[in-house]
């Protein structure tokens, strides 16, 4: 399949045509032509490298009523993603080679995005003994990221061992930093508002103290640490301090922690219930500043679909989580691009090359160069759209952005050289699966 993209604006501002053939970019420059190529007019569109989400919940196996690898992959593609890392809290838990291979092969079969499973750190996410990290690393899924996400590896000795052990396989621990004792029953950010609303508080210190402990552990044993969904200003300070000391720590922030504040909890609308919780305005601004200055390395969605009934109830009873794949790029634009803090070149870094590097995913280090893998998205930053369930393509509609206006729209997504999104709409599942099979056969 040959695709000719004309007049795209690269993240650095250069304007170019892109010729894609057999999964790679074969030519760049202006005035390109190719007989028989599918032409895509990208005039006015920004070409971004295929987005990579280091933190997605695909729910399969076990929670298919919430999401499947297929539906989550479609949600990712429409958001401009070409690769997602799928969290381990499935049922059965992704703590053995069998489960991670199943998830990876489902992703490959559907073909919308590359699905890289994340392995559990501890068996059954129970926080007691290490999972079969080596077996997962050496499996066909080649797992490099390990996380008990949703739960914190709170036992300091177990965390130390995990950090050391994954080093053996070139892996990284992605920690969900939440002291469990300090957050028993926690429902929202702890502060004046939680006191007024009578909701049990989730104090910032429960996140910051675990991050502080973990960066010191990582330094002590010489391991790599990745901090999931940083949410407080204090956490940004701790990570900044750790990086200044040369500790090998990376960190992510979610789109919602870049845009939304705890004030949204006031109406007890459970769409705004998420873990870690929405924080104060000053925390949001600290995340933006941290992302802009490199303290926070990447944006990751923490896409967490839930069935309706998990949200149609009282706040305390509602599940934590928001869907985020479909809206991530627009929210990042609203939070840090339109506010002048970052450029699209920075966006390409925090949503593509850097998450790929942290997750040891190859093919994302030389975007738009001749010979590079053809994973990219064409994005129209000039449009603005009323965000509604029409824009959601996974199973979950638990989006905090419904009824909001968001900037930008992904018009085209190309994964491994074939289109998964065309004219702002998902390409049919059979066509994508066929294209994926061809790509595999081609090698």
């Amino acid at each position: 399949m040959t695709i000719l993209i004309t007049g795209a604006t690269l993240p650095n501002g250069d304007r170019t045509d892109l010729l894609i053939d057999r999964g790679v970019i074969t030519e760049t420059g202006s005035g390109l032509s190719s007989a028989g190529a599918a032409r895509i007019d990208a005039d006015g569109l920004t070409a971004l490298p295929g987005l990579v989400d280091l933190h997605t919940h695909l729910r399969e196996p076990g929670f298919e009523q919430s999401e499947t690898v297929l539906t989550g992959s479609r949600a990712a593609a429409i958001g401009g993603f070409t690769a997602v890392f799928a969290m381990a809290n499935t049922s059965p838990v992704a703590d053995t080679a069998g489960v991670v291979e199943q998830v990876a092969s489902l992703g490959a079969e559907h073909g919308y995005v590359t699905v890289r499973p994340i392995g559990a750190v501890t068996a059954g996410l129970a926080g007691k003994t290490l999972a079969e990290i080596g077996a997962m690393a050496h499996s066909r899924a080649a797992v490099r990221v390990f996380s008990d996400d949703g739960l914190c590896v709170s036992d300091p000795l177990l965390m130390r061992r995990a950090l050391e052990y994954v080093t053996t396989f070139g892996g990284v621990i992605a920690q969900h930093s939440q002291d469990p004792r300090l957050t028993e029953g926690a429902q929202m950010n702890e502060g004046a508002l939680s006191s007024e609303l009578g909701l049990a508080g989730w104090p910032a210190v429960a996140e910051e103290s675990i991050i502080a402990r973990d960066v010191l552990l990582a330094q002590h044993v010489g391991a790599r640490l990745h901090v999931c969904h940083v949410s407080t200003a204090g956490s940004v300070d701790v990570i900044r301090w750790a990086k200044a000391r040369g500790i090998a720590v990376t960190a992510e922030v979610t789109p919602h922690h870049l845009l939304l504040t705890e004030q949204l909890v006031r109406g007890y609308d459970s769409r705004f219930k998420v873990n870690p919780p929405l924080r104060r305005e000053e925390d949001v601004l600290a995340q933006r500043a941290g992302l802009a200055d490199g303290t926070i390395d990447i944006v990751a969605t923490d896409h967490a679909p839930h069935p309706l009934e998990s949200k149609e109830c009282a706040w305390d009873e509602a599940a934590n989580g928001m869907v985020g794949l479909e809206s991530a790029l627009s929210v990042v634009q609203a939070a840090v691009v339109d506010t002048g803090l970052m450029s699209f070149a920075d966006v390409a870094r925090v949503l593509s090359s850097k998450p790929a590097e942290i997750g040891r995913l190859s093919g994302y280090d030389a975007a738009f160069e001749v010979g590079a893998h053809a994973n990219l998205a064409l994005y129209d930053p000039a449009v603005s759209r009323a965000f509604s369930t029409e824009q959601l393509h996974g199973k979950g509609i638990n989006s905090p952005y419904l009824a909001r206006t968001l900037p930008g729209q992904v018009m085209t997504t190309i994964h491994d050289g074939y289109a998964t999104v065309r004219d702002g709409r998902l390409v049919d599942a059979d066509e994508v699966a066929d294209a994926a099979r061809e790509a595999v056969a081609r090698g």
Partner: protein
Amino acid sequence: MRHLLSTKGLTRDEAVMILDVAEDMADVAGREVKKLPALRGKTVVNLFFEDSTRTRISFEAAAKRLSADVINFSAKGSSVSKGESLKDTAQTLAAMGADAVVVRHQASGAPSVLAQSGWIDAGIVNAGDGTHEHPTQALLDAFTIRRRLHGASARGRDLDGVTVTIVGDILHSRVARSNVWLLTTLGARVHLVAPATLVPLGVGDWPVSVGYDLDDAIAGRPDVVMMLRIQAERMNAAFFPNAREYARQWGLGDERLALLPAASLVMHPGPMNRGLEISAQAADSARSTVLEQVANGVSIRMAVLYLLLSGASEGLG
């Protein structure tokens, strides 16, 4: 008034109006026939997800004195479980034609969720939600204070300049929250006293003063001392060492009672832990309003149901 979800949204005029309607309702209780036809044909559902016999029978008595039909729905212990329960229950009650739903729920905000959900069209009265609010309790407390201070001339008056000290587990108390907003709206000066562990974070933003020492507070000669119930489960969660130390530091014992001005009121929302937050002498003294609070509760709830269901004051709240 469409719903009564919290006292935070009430203006001074609205609050005074509710108290005045409650005065009218209290007059009914003095009659030989304690019943008004005002809500004949209306259906009031008491939807209790959490046990509270006192509050439920108070609402039941209030509705019945207004001639409404009353249905008691105890969701606790029934087949209703978590998750969809609130939605399903609400839709069931809507299908049965409930005009007002009085909700007690263990989750903060559950009445607000019901009011905004579109699952049911009835007026919602918050009868206590988690650790959020208990607005009718605060209204009956304000009513009780006003009656004690002003007697027969209470109508139309607020609580300007009245000093109220609330003592105990502010952190978990929906009674305290509703009282803080309502009493200060009515012009009272509220002082909170508790161990630091039971003072909510961010209380600096509240329109109150805060102290840790009950003796200091009593030396300030407050017009009202309101003691809050200490729940048994707080004992084991490191909020304070044990009941003995709590009673010694923050209990209204006989010695502290003796130091309180003779005219000061001693209030408690009940049920009381005698010997823990309040001594038997304090609870039974002439200064105690505990039983008046119970009686006034019916009048307040009559007023709220009447305002909700009679359409007497559209646009309020």
